[in-house]
């Protein structure tokens, strides 16, 4: 290991260094005066130099919302395959048949969902 070659005093210096950096960041974040010279312009949200107009959390067109729904379903389903992949050598070809059927069965609704998701005006 690399760590064993380092003299004892070196580890103290490194520890002091790291904790000093961390302490400085923490002090900067929480202890130092938050806003010594407040001006109204400074705290305005950034809009490329214009005066900010309207609410910050604006409306956002969710034309990709079907992808979010598909993600919620298929990300969980993909995790089931990990249990199969880990034990693939033990299961062999005969033990894998249900999982392969499972994958094929999943692909059919996935294709249909993608077909619907590509009709972006349907959301």
């Amino acid at each position, binding site marked *: 290991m690399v760590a064993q070659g*380092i003299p004892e005093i070196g580890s103290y210096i*490194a520890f002091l260094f790291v904790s000093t950096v961390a302490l400085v960041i923490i002090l*900067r974040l929480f202890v130092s005066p938050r806003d010594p010279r407040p001006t109204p312009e400074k705290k305005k949200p950034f809009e490329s130099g214009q005066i900010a107009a309207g609410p910050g959390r604006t409306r956002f067109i969710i034309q990709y919302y079907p992808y979010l729904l598909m993600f919620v379903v*298929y990300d969980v389903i993909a995790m089931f395959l990990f249990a199969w992949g880990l034990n693939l050598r033990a299961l062999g070809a005969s033990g894998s048949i249900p999982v392969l059927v499972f994958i094929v069965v999943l692909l059919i609704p996935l294709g249909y969902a993608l077909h619907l998701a590509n009709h972006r005006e349907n959301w």
Partner: protein
Amino acid sequence: MAPVLGPLQPIVDMLTSPLFLEIVLFPGLLSIAIIGALLGWLERKVTARVQLRIGPLYASPAGGILQMFADLIKLSFKELFVPENSDAFFFIMAPTTGLVLGAALVGLIPFAPGLQIANIEVGLPAFLAIITLSPTLILLAGWSANSKFPFIGGLRALFQQTAYEIPLWLSALGVIMMAGTMNLAQIVDAQTGGWYILPQALGAFIFLVTSVAEMERLPFDLPEAESEIMMGWQAEYPGVLFLAAQGPGFVKLYAFSALFSVMYLGGFLGPSFLPSLFWMLLKTLIVIVLIMLLRSTFPRVRLDQLLRAGWTTLLTLAILNIGITYLLVVGLPTL
């Protein structure tokens, strides 16, 4: 060591234990901070080289190598304020939690036999599960800033995650099927006969593309696209918080390149005339430079292009890769 220090002895023992030194020095916090800063310099140099510029030059005797440290000092002395009407707690919490997550990723990587902070059985899924949290943090940062550009950037991060996440996991599944284990050190040991880059070439390609998308680097840097939405979710961060928002990007680059070396390039395996740590760092550096060259070569994609490519091309290729791996491991079906 004789107990000569009295009541301080347990503290001294803890501070000099190998695990503590690994956490603090290498591959832990100190090396992560230094390597992250050096990667910032390397990225600017590589990009400048591709674009026929010089890049950072003045901040040291050797090619501006101290530039990022100078930036670090400058940023930490800047005034710290929180924009009005923003949710201050989440605004500060999101980037600092991102730093912690980035450091946790490096803790899972085996850099040499035994030189690994957390050698857990589910190392590979744990790595990918930790990285899954980062788009959520970006969405939180964008929402709490109460400003238009960060909000758009946060929502883009959310949609982008749906595009790359499933191909990323499924391409990692190919390696798990080949190795029969999820432990990263054992995955490296399983590659003594040959690196997985050859049988898993398709999986390695998908993993590289999706991990670049996960790191939000060009050509997939939609959440921070500085020419479209002004650094996106990072737009409102001042001083030290901007540093905390930028830093995880480089730490993730380091961790993902190390993971790519572990999964496909044989990790710390190599000819024995040099230490295994050298081979690991060399492979990591090669992957890092490859990803930086991607950044300086390709233009940015649109969100709908990324979603469509992720859900059709990458997902199909990932399932095809699982089929190929199945045939490689189990063999052709005999009827």
